């Protein structure tokens, strides 16, 4: 077994994840390298879900009965846990959504309906980047179409980094909001937050950080980021599907208008008009994803117990090893940074002119699960003149042996189409 400095005790960790024992294609143990798409779930999270449904399930917030009080305490307790996990100044700044996409749309819509000084209109500009996930592109395209605001973006350098050389021209006095990803889901690039935030603050623009690929993998401190909004998603960080988070600065959440209307988000309703509850409830219309929040709470407990620094170190070691080994594969071209510096554990590549679909299929036959396609970041593929990539992405349970399996698998792919 390859030993790398900084690795976690994956043998112990993998025991927490029932699915990692799954066998596919006639007895091949699955090698799950599709973690940037979604992570697997530890038993601790599944136990929390079952415990919730089997003992405490009730609707939250309005009950005087035991189950309703327990469900409310669990749901609001999950908010406390998530707030602590991202070092939020206040628990009331944590809004539960269904996924990161809803979180980002929520911000775009708050701004779309906001009054001055937040309002977005034809005299204002919105800035994103060319490496965003579609979920951080389309909401802003819709906002710009619907308000007349101009959408601008940072381009990319040849080595998969943001091209900030024209930062002064891109972020200007007209810029109302700058929204960008902390870590690219397709290239793994970790972006220089501070530089962008400083410029945005200089011109008085709001900063939205898409931390979907960061929250699972590194220490996320919303205060250190100095952003105004931070979005992420539960299913990529050992949590259930159906739960996302938007953290926002309290005064903004107080000032900005609601998005979805309905039960739970109101203060008082008459047929003629309604007033709204304070944040976070103002932004949580309807019965929330209660069990899913509880599951996410268990997930951040799980990650926290291992330690995000340790997880980060583990992934760094794996990434370093994977980049090195992948670059040994003939005709393999990494799309994105080719070192482990300032990059996460998602590695995209092309293999000669074998189409990623074919690469993925032949890998699958060997039990190796990778993702192929444009990874909801089609502008990146356009930028680098490729139709798609194959992406291997790692997590806290990934091992050097799995990297080796991937490299061997790619060899097999080359032979197959050779």
């Amino acid at each position, binding site marked *: 077994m390859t030993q790398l400095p900084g690795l976690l005790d994956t043998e112990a960790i993998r025991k927490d994840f029932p699915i990692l024992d799954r066998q596919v294609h006639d007895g091949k143990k699955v090698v799950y390298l599709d973690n940037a798409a979604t992570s697997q779930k530890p038993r601790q999270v599944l136990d929390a879900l079952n415990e919730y449904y089997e003992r405490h399930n009730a609707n939250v*917030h*309005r*009950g*005087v009965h035991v189950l*309703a*009080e327990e469900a*409310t*305490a669990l749901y609001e307790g999950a908010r406390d846990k998530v707030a602590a996990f991202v070092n939020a100044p206040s628990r009331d700044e944590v809004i539960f959504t269904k996924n990161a996409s809803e979180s980002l749309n929520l911000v775009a819509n708050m701004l779309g309906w906001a009054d001055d000084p937040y309002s977005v209109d034809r005299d204002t500009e919105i800035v994103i980047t060319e490496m965003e996930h579609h979920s951080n592109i389309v909401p802003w395209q819709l906002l710009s179409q619907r308000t007349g605001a101009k959408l601008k973006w940072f381009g990319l350098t040849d080595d998969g980094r943001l091209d900030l050389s024209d930062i002064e021209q891109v972020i200007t006095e007209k810029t109302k909001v700058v929204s960008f990803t902390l870590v690219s889901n397709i290239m793994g690039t970790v972006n220089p937050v501070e530089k962008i935030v400083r410029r945005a603050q200089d011109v008085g623009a709001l900063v939205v950080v898409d931390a979907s690929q960061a929250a699972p993998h590194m220490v996320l401190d919303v205060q250190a980021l100095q952003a105004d909004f931070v979005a992420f998603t539960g299913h990529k960080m050992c949590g259930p599907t159906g739960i996302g988070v938007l953290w926002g600065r309290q005064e903004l959440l107080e000032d900005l208008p609601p998005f979805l209307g309905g039960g739970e988000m*109101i*203060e*008082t309703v008459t047929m003629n008009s309604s*007033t709204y*509850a*304070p944040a976070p409830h103002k932004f949580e219309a309807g019965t929330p994803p209660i069990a899913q929040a509880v599951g996410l709470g268990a997930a951040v407990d799980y990650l926290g117990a291992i330690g995000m620094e340790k997880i980060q170190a583990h992934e760094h070691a794996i990434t370093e090893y994977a980049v090195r080994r992948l670059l040994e594969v003939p005709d393999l071209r990494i799309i994105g940074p080719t070192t482990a510096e300032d990059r996460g554990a998602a590695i995209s590549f092309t293999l000669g002119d074998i189409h990623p679909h074919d690469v993925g299929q032949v890998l699958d036959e060997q039990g190796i699960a990778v993702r192929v396609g444009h990874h909801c970041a089609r502008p990146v593929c356009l930028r680098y003149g490729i139709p798609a990539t194959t992406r291997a992405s790692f997590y806290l349970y990934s091992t050097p042996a799995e990297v080796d399996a991937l490299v061997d698998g790619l060899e097999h792919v080359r032979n197959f189409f050779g």
Partner: protein
Amino acid sequence: MKLDSMYQDVILDHYKHPHGRGLRDGDAEVHHVNPTCGDEITLRVKLDGENIADVSYEGQGCSISQASASVLNELLVGTKLDEAHRIQETFLELMQSKGRIEPDDAMEEVLEDAVAFAGVSKYPARVKCALLSWMAWKDATAQALGESAGRNTV
């Protein structure tokens, strides 16, 4: 029965025979709502320099919120403002204690009948009922003193 720890006789008594209920002349008026249960209170504060001359109120709600308003009236009318704030803060502390504070003699001296609400603090859904009138009083007092209005005012 555990319930008796919430529905102390003192509370039921205040509920059935509320003190100072009804709206009278005041320097400021607020209307507070508890959105989770629909409890409402309209409350007026009348100041006489540093003295609380009157707290009058009208509202609808459960025994806890009604009794709490009655106790508030009994405790605060006739006291000085700083003393009233001390009582309010002590009551808030007790209500947020999740049943963990067993009121001692010192607390009892400050809160008098209001110590009966100690049991309510074990029921998270009811804590807001007990606090409704107290928050309204604090808000109305701030307004009477010319400070900024509270968020909940409709």
